[in-house]
């Protein structure tokens, strides 16, 4: 479980903090991006075992970010969890089409978050 890195992308600092704390308590390493554009610069070829991304963000939204990240060879198979307040079916379908593996509606429960991460994270 240790030495696995997870990228958190959310424009809300408090959400990033809560997600980060939840993941760090389980032994994961965490890097953060404040929107899609920032997250793409944070990726920069580094090894990331899972991505957790918000949908509605300034500069670059989550769906666009995931689509762009999935085009990069290093992140083609990196699992993505969309973490958003959106529960609209069309948005979910867009997330799935972009390559997301799960759609989690905020507010999230830490135990469920960790269970989903454990289920999807790359070995």
């Amino acid at each position, binding site marked *: 479980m240790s030495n696995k890195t997870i990228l958190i992308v959310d424009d809300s600092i*408090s*959400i990033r903090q809560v997600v980060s704390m939840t993941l760090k308590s389980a032994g994961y390493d965490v890097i953060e991006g404040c929107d899609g554009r920032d997250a793409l610069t944070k990726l920069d070829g580094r090894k990331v075992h899972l991505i957790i991304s918000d949908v509605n963000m300034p500069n670059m939204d989550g769906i666009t970010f995931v689509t762009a990240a999935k085009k990069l060879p290093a992140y083609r198979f990196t699992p993505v969890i969309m973490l958003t307040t959106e529960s609209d079916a069309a948005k979910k379908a867009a997330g799935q089409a972009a390559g997301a593996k799960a759609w989690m509606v905020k*507010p999230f429960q830490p135990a469920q978050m960790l269970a989903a991460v454990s289920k999807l994270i790359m070995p």
Partner: protein
Amino acid sequence: MEHASSSPSLVDFTFIPALLGACGTGAILFVGGVTPTTLALSATQVVLAAGLGFWQLRRAQARHAERAADQAVSQSPASGRDEALEALCVAVLPVWSEQIEAARAHTEQEIVSLTSRFAELADRIHSVAGADHGGGDRLVNLMASSQNQLDGILHSLREALSSKGALLDEVNGLAGLTEQLKSMAKDVGDVARQTNLLALNAAIEAARAGEAGRGFAVVADEVRKLSTLSGDTGQKIGETVETVNGAIARTLELSQLHAERDTGTLNQSGETIEQVIGAFGGTTRDVVERSDALADNAAAVGGAIAEVLVALQFQDRVSQMLGHIRDDQARLERLVIDRRALAASGQPLPTLDTRGWLAELARTYTMAEQVAVHHGKRPAAAAAESDITFF
């Protein structure tokens, strides 16, 4: 209110100055007669009167145009417009938006600060609980190990004492052997006495035999000397055995005394060790119980903090809702400004599409509760578990 008014005509505004000019010209010619001077003055009078009339006409036309524009901008029953309300909207909507943004930013800042502090607390509790984890077990194990070692020492001491007892039994056995030695020494004395008597009888018989028994008398004398010597030796053996027997008896007495003292000391040590171990065990149990209680409390506090952090996620939802209201107010402000501009330029105002506006607002929603509120319903209570869909 609609004001029906016609545009001012040239006749309306030049008639009175022209009339006054004509009267003035007549008066000048009547008083001064027809002279070049009066004719010049009269001409000047007419030109001034005509100019005054034209100026008044332009001014009236300008006023009319302004009034028409004002009428278009001001209350118009046909369009339902209210300039004062529009002005109020244009003035107050940005203020509302600023206030909402300020409240949103303030809440976000404080929630971020709270989240950081709670996260720090959770980290500390986690590290403390982790550091203390197993401390109670280690203490209990240490106590058990100490008790085993001390019991081992007591066992060794008891074994040593038991060996000492076996040794004393052996020495006691020696005491029995010395009695046999004493008996044997007595037997040697008895044999010597019997031999002495026998030698004496042999000497008597040798004397009776005369010259023939002279040699035998010498032998009998030597035998008597030997029997005397044997008797002395037997007596010395008896005395020596008696001495050894006394020494053994004293050794046994001292050894038994020491053995009793050692047994007492050992028993006392055992009791002391049991007391110490018992007291240590009691304290250890207290420490372990307190440690367990602390660990339980730390886990409970950690769990409560995790719940608080989950609850603090409301800030993200509130921020989004306020952001949508702020954006829609800005949209309304732009609409009011655009319609005022259209009205001021005399262009017809498009019909307001209230349903379309609300539909556009609804499209910006990201949360089910926003949609529920939009349709006048109560927002559903927060679910106990996250809504998660795996693709």
